[in-house]
């Protein structure tokens, strides 16, 4: 059977994006849904959005990655082509235990996109490669 949760999550995020484009005062509805679907990540992810912690890093070829400044001050990298984050919570909760679809950083990336709160950074190809490779080395 096809998975349900990703479709629900995607629809929710699309709604949030739509709500942010128009003037809307009923923002509590999506808050409740966010909490229901994403559980304990929701509040920390919103906090990261409030603090404008998400940066979309682009290179001239069009490759993108996301960098999120975590609450501890550490910078985590999230991929744009699949759900992946370099934070330990992702490795544990998502990969190992499959208890969550995302970690708070990936959710913050989506929310920042939906709300237009992403910072933008353009770097060279080499720099972007380094960002991605550096994380690989850490993992290894």
């Amino acid at each position, binding site marked *: 059977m096809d998975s349900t949760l990703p479709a629900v999550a995607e629809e929710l995020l699309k709604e949030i994006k739509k709500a942010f484009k128009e003037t809307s005062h009923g923002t509590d509805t999506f808050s409740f849904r966010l909490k229901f679907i994403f559980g304990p990540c929701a509040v920390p992810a919103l906090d990261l959005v409030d603090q404008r912690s998400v940066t979309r890093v682009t290179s001239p070829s069009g490759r993108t990655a996301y960098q999120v400044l975590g609450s501890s001050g550490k910078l985590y990298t999230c991929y744009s082509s699949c759900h992946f984050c370099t934070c330990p919570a992702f490795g544990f909760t998502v990969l190992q235990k499959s208890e*969550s*679809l995302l970690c708070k950083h990936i959710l913050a990336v989506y929310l920042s996109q939906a709300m237009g*709160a992403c910072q933008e950074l353009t770097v060279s190809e080499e720099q972007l490669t380094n960002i991605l490779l550096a994380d690989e080395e850490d993992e290894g």
Partner: protein
Amino acid sequence: LCRGGLAERLCRLQNRERSAISFWRHQCISDAKIPSDKSGVLIVKILEMFEECTIQVAICQQLEQSPATLSSKDAVINAGEPILKVLFARETAAHLKSRPQDVIHIYPPWQKLILRNADVPVIMNTYFSLKVLPSEHSETREKTYGLTKMLIRKNIISLAETFRLDDVDDELHHQTSDHQVTCAPQIHNNCDSKKHPLAQSAVNDSLLEMVESQGAVGWREAQVRVVIQRVYCLPTREGYGSRVQGNKPLLSNRGMFCRLCLLVQDAYGMFSEVQLQPLNSADDVEQYCRRWEGKFCCLAGMKILQRTTRGRALGLFSLIDSLWPPVVPVKVPGQSQDSEMMTTNLAPPSFCYILTVQSGEIHVEVDEEEQISNLYQPPAVHGLKEILRMDGCNERCSFWAQVLYLRLQTKQSVPINQREICLFVTDSTLQNMVHMIPKVVAVSVAASCVLSTEITEALSVTSQFVFFKDALWGKGMIICVERTVLLLQKPLLYSAAGADLSELTGPVRLDELDSTTQANSICAVRGTVVGVNESTAFSWPTCDRCGNGKLELCPQDRGSLYCSQCSEVVISPVLKMQLEVFLSCSSRPQSTIKVKVWHEMSFGLFVLINMLLSLQSYEVQSVLGKEVGLLNCYVRSVTSHPNCIALEEIVLL
């Protein structure tokens, strides 16, 4: 968590919800019956279950009525009944312990989500759910359930299933994201407002609502309509400009970097300080005051800089207090628009949001063409006599006065443009009084009060009438601080409660020196010379261009003088002579009165006076016993032991 941010908001809502859920469950258990409120209850029968992450997904059939009345045989899948996907949170699922064929009652508030490409609606936020067992087989079923452990299939979601937030329609839309580019913000004129996209969005009239519904991620489109009560400049920390201009080094560099600010009020009476773009100098403030004060303005895309309270921002709140209570009734939040609160009993505000604009476009549209709002309170102008009689501390006051003399604070450690300036002012209410009230009052201008170059230049040249808007009165002193604006012209609108704003007729008179004279004031002195302090008598040449008193000998030509500030030889220096004279005054007979007297002479007499001074043959004898006419003096110090007053002769503007 960020104050006012989305996360904080969700936390609050969550806490409320959590207590609601546990209360509801507790009620169900203690009542031992199904809650009777049937409206909005969703009744479903579980067909199939599986797990995704920690959410339990149940494919269900929606039932018309509770099958408690039906026998188990009748509970057959009816092809016509709608299928739903019901999601249960981990905690709810653990509480329900449901299995296929179970019937669940889902109480509101539950939420329904329709996915774009799927037929099956999704039900979520199902916290308030109850399992309902068919009455007949309840006991046997329970036992069976208790024994067999149910295994639920878990779907592992692939990491490749990312979410796409863009729709086909979205691709045409430029995705908004904050750029790091800083553009010079422009304030839109009224003529653009019709074409501007902002004009199409809904306009709100509550600042608090705008602040609370947006959090720290500033919204671009929501607009608030407010009244501009005051326009002023606040000094910024980025830099204090230090330009030394021409012949007047004293006042020249007050050109601090400053930021244009508005104090606005909404229809509910709430205030907010809006910080706009930085200005190079305060020169345009007078214009903005004239064009904008009292008008309506639409704010959009504001970012909350700070929420400040009375205790932390005394200056701001003294200004707010001067505008309280509102002159027209204000709306009360939560009540219908017809009932408006009487303003007399409203307590003054205790907090205020400081807003600033997002980098990039400014969304402050002032409707200059429209009429002045009824809510606007123009500055209340009083005569100085009234102000001196006011009770209270930290009261804002406005007045129109003539500046007679100006003195710069002499602390050498403070740069010139940050020094306090003392202005000695008077108006007709003081001049026309006979006694008990001083004729001239000192107004201290702190470094935080931003002055335009127009004012500083005008003040150093000649006596000016200046409008002091929102100065502070307290502890017997008038001071100009942040948010005080000095203008050369009276504003278009002001309320003059019986104040006499006519120009002064006749020459200005100063108080004569007497027993009540205090330090840091100006007065007129007359008396007889009883002594000359020869040790302090000296003269020195000054540059005729810039007034520099520290001339040097020219390196090339030892006979000439050189001014390092002008970087030129001084051809005709101005000689300044200083002499301290002791006077005996009949108005203050007990005190020794020491007057520092200055005399400026041109080069022509320089040689002659020099000779006379060195000979010391004439001045003491010829000066003793001489009557000195009314000298205008600045009182430097007054001491009681010894009883001495030190004065300095001054020239009024």
